[in-house]
């Protein structure tokens, strides 16, 4: 349990550093550290497969995407657009809504039974596959539609249509 508190403390510290660093590239690097602490959390929770996936996909691939997005933008300080007060208000409202949602969902949470924690093999890839292809088949198939939507959205946003434009 003490390991959990150390890792949780590190997660919060790195997450705060993501927000408070001025340099966006440093911010991304701190986000990688945050994801690494999440990987440790997954291992503590006996979710070994998820830990490996988190390590490879999030820390590897998705962070590269974040860096790409940073480099797509013009990060020179003189071209940095001034953030208007309207944008700040909108951001505060959006963040507040997220906070309310999180607090509301936290309130309805009940403490999970500890039987899952005792079964150490529950997060292995074999057991995960058995559950994924029986109890969670519909979410699994729906996730393919989610991926399809992301694919179409990315292509639509990034690809200039020559016929209409």
């Amino acid at each position: 349990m003490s390991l959990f508190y150390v890792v949780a403390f590190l997660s919060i510290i790195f997450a705060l550093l993501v927000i408070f660093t001025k340099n966006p590239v440093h911010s991304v690097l701190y986000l990688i550290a945050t994801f690494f602490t999440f990987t440790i959390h997954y291992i503590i929770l006996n979710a070994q497969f998820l830990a490996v996936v988190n390590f490879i996909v999030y820390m590897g691939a998705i962070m590269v995407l974040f860096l790409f997005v940073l480099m797509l933008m013009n990060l020179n300080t003189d071209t940095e657009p001034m953030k208007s007060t309207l944008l700040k208000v909108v951001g505060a409202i959006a963040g507040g809504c997220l906070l309310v949602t999180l607090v509301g969902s936290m309130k309805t949470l009940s403490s999970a039974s500890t039987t899952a924690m005792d079964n150490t093999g529950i997060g292995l890839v074999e057991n995960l596959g058995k559950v994924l292809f029986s109890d969670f088949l519909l979410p699994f198939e729906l996730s393919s539609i989610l991926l399809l939507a992301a694919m179409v959205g990315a292509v639509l946003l990034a690809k200039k249509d020559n016929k209409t434009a």
Partner: protein
Amino acid sequence: MSAPVDYLPIIMQLLVALGFVALTMGITHLIGPKRKTTDVKLTAFESGIEVIGNARQPFSIKYFVVAILFVLFDVEVIFMYPWAVNFREFGLNGLIEMFIFMGTLLLGFIYVIKKKALEWD
């Protein structure tokens, strides 16, 4: 299988990897030749032409498209691991379920190809 002791090899490998980086960087600093440089020598030098502007130019979005498509198919492959491990046990049903999943993503792939999103024109 999942006792904390089982992760000791991984932690050791991590420590060896980090230690190697730290050690090589430290040793090169110690045994490498030192050279006194002025500020002029440290400036970017390209065939005697003066530096113009900033190196921070926004680059093409084509790289981003390739990267995001890679990540999406990466996630697809991740989903195939739990299926492949239990492949014999699932039998024909598992095969059909996986083919529905892959078929949807294949539609996306055909869309990407048809839209010529991966072509560098």
